[in-house]
């Protein structure tokens, strides 16, 4: 079974993909930047900002941060608390 990255989706992005999570084949994805590029290439994915926030293990991650199938990964729309 090929490894997959599970990406949690919220708010606008959950609506965009009609799902609470994406299962993405991990092959060729080393970093947050790679992951974002793959997501933006999905149908409807162009609406995800190239600078979208990604959290890895509950912490906001930079583009060059590593991601692996063992991590809890989340794609965060622009924050709007308060």
């Amino acid at each position: 079974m090929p490894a997959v990255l599970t990406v949690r989706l919220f708010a606008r992005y959950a609506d965009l993909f009609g799902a609470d999570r994406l299962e993405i084949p991990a092959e060729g994805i080393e970093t947050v930047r790679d992951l974002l590029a793959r997501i933006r290439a999905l149908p409807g994915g162009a609406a995800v900002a190239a600078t979208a926030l990604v959290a890895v293990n509950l912490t906001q991650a930079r583009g060059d941060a590593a991601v692996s199938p063992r991590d809890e990964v989340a794609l965060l729309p622009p924050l709007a608390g308060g």
Partner: protein
Amino acid sequence: MPHLTRARLDLGDLLCEIAAPERGGVASFLGLVRDHHEGRGVQGIEYSAYEPMAESLCEAIVTEAQARWPVRVALRHRLGELVVGDTAVAVAVAGPHRDEAFAACRYVIEELKRRVPIWKRERYADGTEQWVDPTREARSERVEGRGSLR
């Protein structure tokens, strides 16, 4: 206490948590659901969060404020369906004097807005709904500002 809750927020509860005989200055902030936003009539707001991350960041922000100033902080954000006038967020800070209390209260609400993964979908009077995007509003305000004569 968890910082995220689906129950009504009561500032009195927060004040009780932080009160102590040596703390004479208490600053607090409440964010309420307004009846309008960007010129549209608002009926209610649904708040949601990436809950484990939001909890952990709220706790981090409280800890940062308490390390930086000699204060005790209580912070609560509500999730779920809110109507106009409901309290969405409450911050209360008690310290020996008012300077620290005001500074820490301001810090907590600004950091919450900047860092905590919470989202809101507004329900408008015309029946439509929309996710709120503060980054887009900031951009359009800048563009409008540039074009105006004010």
